[in-house]
Structures are given as C-alpha cells and as structure tokens.
C-alpha cells in the first residue's frame, strides 16, 4: 500500500471544504479527480501537499504520516504540479527546474553532479531541454507548464499531484503530458493523482476515478465503472452520451 488518504475534514479556519474523503492508491496507479467547479479538487491537492491550514484525518505515503511530517520531509514524498504557470521571470529554465531539488539540497541550495543529472533527465522527459537557457519570463503558458512539470519530476518523489495540468496545453501536449504521467506511473512506479476537467482525458489515462461533489465523495472506483452516463449526469447535472470511438476503442463522453 503506498498512498492512503483518510480525510475526515479539511478547509480553512471556520470553513469546511472537504469531508470524508477516503481512498487508497497502490504503487504505479493514476487516479483522476473529477467534479464540477468548486467541488473541492484543488482543495484536496492543497490538503495533501500540506498548504491547507486545517486538515483532520490521516494521510500516509508508505508508512510516513504526512500530517505530522515537516515541510521538507513531505516535499521528498509528494510533488505538486500547480495550476498556476507563474515562474519568477528572471530565472533561466534550468535554474527553475533545479529548484525542484530543494528538499534534497542543503540550506544554501548547493547542487552536486547527481542533482544535475536528475535535472538533465527530467528536462528530457518534459521536452524542455532546448529551452534550458531561456528566461522563464519569455516562455509561453504551455512551455511554463512543462517547465513546472519538469521541476516536480526533479523533486523525485513517489507521489505526484497535478492540478489541472493540461489547462494551458494544446491538443498534442495535453496527450503527451498525460502519456508521460502514464509512463512514469508504469515504468517508475510513481503514484499520480491528477485533477482533470476533461472527462475524455480522464477516461483515457486514469486507472481509477474519484468524483467529488460539494466537497464529498460522489463516486470512487475503476475508471470504466465510474465514468458511465448515469453517474456523470448525476455529478454534473447534465445529460451525456457515452460511446466507444470506432477505431481507437476509446471511451468518449459528450453532452447530449
């Protein structure tokens, strides 16, 4: 068992956003978190990465309790690809990605050959090697998103959380981004949790789906079981058609 989440409640002082979220995710799996706007997807990621002021419950990666862990310890186990694509503009791409090594570096941030090798590899994975000397302020939103992914990969954690990671990407990079996540899960045994709006991408790339509604679990289970017309209609209050694409045999969901 790798990732075990049992949140009784989480939110801000005096305001509960999430209640009773429970799931377990074994090694190398991809969980898509879906749900309408404001259903608590981002809050779940913030709760799991330790930046939410109030979290009650249990959160285990392997046998480490993340709720009582300190920030550096947590950052060696969980990396986050945030929704925002803002990177300090005066840093070069390679420097920005090296910041992903922060939880492994000393106080002054001195990197060694191993750190540089990891950064080199993650730049290749995220297809940003040719941008390495560019200033972050000159990147497009899609390029920034891939740089931030590379940074999260450089953090070298068993668990990767992604908040709408494809929102700024074009069609090709949306697919490539999630294919990379899939490859990392399968080949490197990373556990990936991604909040995704696009149900078709969720259907294509995830093993399991957690559907949230009003901060509570609306559905949880294997992707092909959860993403059916009745469940989606119930969660989004919108009638949909679900069918299988003729040549790729993939599940397609469209509003009817």
């Amino acid at each position, binding site marked *: 068992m790798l990732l075990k989440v049992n949140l009784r409640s989480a939110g801000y002082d005096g305001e509960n956003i999430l209640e009773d979220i429970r799931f377990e995710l074994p090694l190398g799996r991809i969980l898509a978190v879906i749900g309408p706007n404001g259903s608590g997807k981002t809050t779940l990621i*913030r709760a799991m*990465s*330790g*930046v939410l002021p109030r979290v009650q419950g249990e959160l285990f990666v392997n046998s480490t309790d993340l709720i009582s862990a*300190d*920030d*550096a*310890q*947590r*950052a*060696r186990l*969980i*990396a*986050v690809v*945030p929704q*925002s694509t*803002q*990177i*300090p*503009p*005066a*840093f*070069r791409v390679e*420097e920005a990605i090296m*910041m*992903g090594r*922060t*939880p492994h*570096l000393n*106080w*002054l*941030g001195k990197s060694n050959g191993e750190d540089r090798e990891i950064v080199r590899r993650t730049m290749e994975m995220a297809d940003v090697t040719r941008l390495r000397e560019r*200033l972050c*302020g000159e990147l497009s939103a899609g390029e920034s998103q891939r740089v931030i992914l590379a940074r999260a990969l450089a*953090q070298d954690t068993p668990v990767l959380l992604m908040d709408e990671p494809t929102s700024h990407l074009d069609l090709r990079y949306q697919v490539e981004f999630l294919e990379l996540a899939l490859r990392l899960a399968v080949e490197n045994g990373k556990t990936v949790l991604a909040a995704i709006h696009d149900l078709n991408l969720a259907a294509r790339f995830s093993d399991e789906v957690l559907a949230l509604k009003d901060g509570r679990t609306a559905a949880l289970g294997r992707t092909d079981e959860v993403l059916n017309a009745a469940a989606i209609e119930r969660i989004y209050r919108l009638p949909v058609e679900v069918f299988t694409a003729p040549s790729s045999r993939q599940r397609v969901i469209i509003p009817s």
Partner: protein
Amino acid sequence: MKTFARSLLWLSALLLAAAVLSVGVGSVFIPPGEALKTLWGALRGAPPASESEQIQRVILMTLRLPRTLLMALTGAALAASGSAYQGLFRNPLADPYLIGAASGAGLGAVAALTIRYPSSPTSYLAVPLASFLGALLSVLLVYRLARVGRTLPVTNLILAGVAVSSFATALTSFLMINASGELRRALVWLLGGSTLSSWKPLVGQIPYTLLGCAGLLALAYRLNVLQLGDEQAQQLGIHVARDRTLVVMAATLATASAVAFSGIIGFVGLIVPHILRRTSGGDMRRLLPLSMVGGAVFLVCADILARVLMAPQELPVGIITALCGAPFFLILLRRSKKGLW
C-alpha cells in the same frame, strides 16, 4: 558561474577606481596617483615627506576616506536590501525607500535623536536600534495594508508605501520642528548628506550593515525559492513563515543601518538590482553579492557628483540619487507588466 566571477571582478575594480577618485575630490583636489601614494604612506605609518603631504594625509585620513567608506557601505546595504525586498514581494518596484522602510527608519532615528542629541556614545547604539524598529514597523504596516488575500498587487504596494512613507515623514518633520536648533543638522543628515565625515559613524554602522548583509547572503537560496510564492515554496519543503520573517529582518536591518548613519537616500535599492538582474539573472546567490558591490559603486559615484556639481557647495547625495532614480522608476513602472524581477 564564470560570468558571475567576471562581473564581480569588474564591479570590484570599478569600486576601487571610484573610491580613489572619490577621496581626491573636494575643495582640495588630490589626483588619484598622489592620493594612493599618500594613503599608502599613511597606512605604512611612514613619516610624511613634505608639509603638503602632511596636509593631504590629514584630509584623506580624517575626512575623505571615512566618508567614501561610509558611502560604499551604505550603497551596499541599500542595494542588497532592495534586491531582497524585490524578491520577497515578487515585485520589481519594491525599494527600501518606496515601501516605507527608509522613512520608518528615518522616523525612528529622529525620535531617538530628539531624546538624546548630539553624539553621546549611547546614541550610536540607540539610533540604529530605533531606526531598525521604525523600519520594521513600516514594512509590516505596508505589507498588511497592501495585501489582498494571498496576493500583493503592485499598485497596492506602491500606494501603501507612499501613504506610510508620507505619514512617517510628516511625523519626522513634526519632531524636528519642535526640537531645538541642534536638530537642524539632522535635517541635512536626513536628506542624505554625509556631512558627518569622520570615523565615528563608520565604526557605528559597520556591525549593523555587516550583520544585515551577511544574513541576506545566508538566506539567498531561501529567497530564490520564496519567489515561487508561498504555496509552491512550501510544497518544495521551505519553511515559508520562518524564512520570510528572517529575510524581512535582515533586509530591514541593512536598510536601517544605512539610514541611521547616512540619512534617507532613495532609489539605490531600485536602480542597482534592476540593472544587475537584467545582466546576471534572478538567482539571489549571484544577485545579492553583485548588488552589494554595485550599490557601493553607485553611491560613491553619486557622492562624487554631489561634491562636484555645485562646488564649492555640497549637495546632499540623496538629491543626486533621486534625480537619477525618479525617472528610472517611472520608466520601470510603465514597463512593469512584463518586467523582470
């Protein structure tokens, strides 16, 4: 790394040249070569060769050298704290002067001076401490006023900075009007006139400036990661609240040390880091040391101008930096939408 070493070397050479020129400039002009020879003789403790060298030696050692060193130290402190504030607030316009730190420090210093003036030994201890407290209070106030939820909009930061600065300046003026004649000298000091040319203020300033600058250098990498914003910095394992407090303390100490002994000198912390960030990037581990040397060069040069422009009359150096800085600030403000901080 190589370019960093080269830039640091160039700036240091520039600083040396500016310093040699600076000790020569004044009512008695001493050419750079002669100045160096005289200084070298004085440092070796050799007896002066002639009466004119004796006079030069007195001028250099008791007036010009401490003044030049004071300007260098002040410039370094202001530019370093400017870099740090800009990184911390993620805003290219955060300068110790603009965000109220300098005015707060001025208020603290004048308040301390009103209680005890002129230079008793305790005042060299009390004045910097009081300006540190005044500066800290102003920065916290500006930050609180400007913050909207989790963001710190540029316009709010500037407006809050202007408001707090004006308030602190008004209080300072009030204190000075009510004080006795001796405090008139404080007015000149407040405008950034280094008329206190002697070793005493220099010796007083050194420990505070060194502590502030050393603290900032030690925090340079933390400051890099803090630039990602609170949430992302924490997700990378940074103890955000603690590290940010440490940065504010160190930057404010550096600002206060400069203000307490050299008065309010604006825009050094804005111009110098901005130029260096363009040439050397945003990594604070490079930007902070470069800013320190660059700030020293800038202020020593401004002080030379202050003594030359209206000679024999001396202008407060703060006027020179403001004359260069205000237009620079306006250009920056127009371009700040996509500027590099």
